[in-house]
């Protein structure tokens, strides 16, 4: 099963930390709304490690 990252919107504080570390440009902070582009995300999980709020998770 391919891996991908999902965001828990109740935890996310829309800070953009995850966007700063993603070399695949698979996420974007749109105003105060985090968008994850599934087609570009390979589930490497670097964003999970940087998230201050523990709002991201790799799932398959």
């Amino acid at each position, binding site marked *: 099963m391919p891996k991908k990252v999902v965001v828990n919107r109740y935890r996310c504080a829309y800070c953009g930390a995850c*966007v700063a*570390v993603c*070399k695949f440009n698979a996420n974007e902070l749109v105003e105060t709304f985090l968008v994850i582009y599934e087609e570009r995300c390979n589930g490497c999980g670097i964003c999970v490690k940087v998230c*201050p709020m523990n709002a991201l998770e790799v799932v398959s």
Partner: protein
Amino acid sequence: MNYDVVVIGAGPGGSMTAKTCAENGLNVLLVEKRQEIGAPVRCAEGIGKKDLERFVEIDKRFISAEVVGAKIYAPDGTEITLTEEMAGNEVGYVLERKIFDRHLAKLASKAGAEVMVKTSAIGMERTKDGVKVKLRRMGEEFEVECKIVVGADGVESRVGKWAGIDTTLKLDEIESCVQYLMTGIDFDPEYCHFWFGREIAPGGYIWLFPKGKDSANVGIGVMPSLAKKPPKDYLDDFVESHYPKGKIVEVVAGAVPVMGEMKTAVADNVMLVGDAARHADPITGGGIANAMKAGYYAGKVASEAIRREDFSAKFLRKYDELWKNDFGKDLAKKRKLQQKLIKMDDETLSKLMRTLKECKLEEISVKAMIKVLIKKHPKLLWDLKDLVL
């Protein structure tokens, strides 16, 4: 629509750029993706007095508190007091960013800049004689044309990547931060407070910045490459042990680029400013002052570029020269110092802080502090010697 310069992001760096461009007679557009400039805040809000006073007239509406120095706490509890000058001028004022950022954007607009909020930049494309910037405003997409794009779009910057500057940060080049605005807590309001230690904040520190008599920004930054859990968990542990009765009235999260000096913050038709150019201080994480300086330089260079009709990376390198000479070299040194500090265990850190406490600190600077430490602990710190020569 046609502009000389489009500035993406209305933080202190972007607004200073737009203001400087407008004051030099340029036709400039300042774009902010959020509906409110300055909110949500992603900052501990501290800035040195001289740095702030260099660019704005002080208005007490955007000053939350004034402090006279910093108190630093070692893992073993050793406490060191630094005066404002010795703390690298990073403390002095604690701002109210929600008001400050709006004030700066207003200054830019008063100088003649056009401002658009709730407007995201979603792409750009170089053309024969400039750049087309794709914008989206409340769901509607449109294009504007300009000669120069200034990316002041923060830690999550896209502009650099569009222009071919790789700004992706690694896990040891970023601090992951959480901050609570707390009230009902007891602290010395004359000082900003810093707690260091691998156990409580690996690769970063915990801060308390006063925002009035009984409220303060209490926050943490950790380096994700070293952290064993999210910063929020570290902060919660700290709050529970230090301020169990305090009330949390606001939560903010953020990330600070701490990679040090970038090779270049320019490309053809493009300049990066502030966090987008990784201008934050690798030791303190402070970024407002450098962003404003960079914004001023970018505005100046943009004005010259427009006058000469030369928007090439080669010409815009003037901007690189200006920010590197002002604070870029300092960023590189601080990065080196940071690399050393984050490797120290709590016992070593405490030992160094005790050495400093034994010296008569009132008479020395941060540079002199490092000198003293190298003298007393040469084996441990010899590789830092070129930082102070």
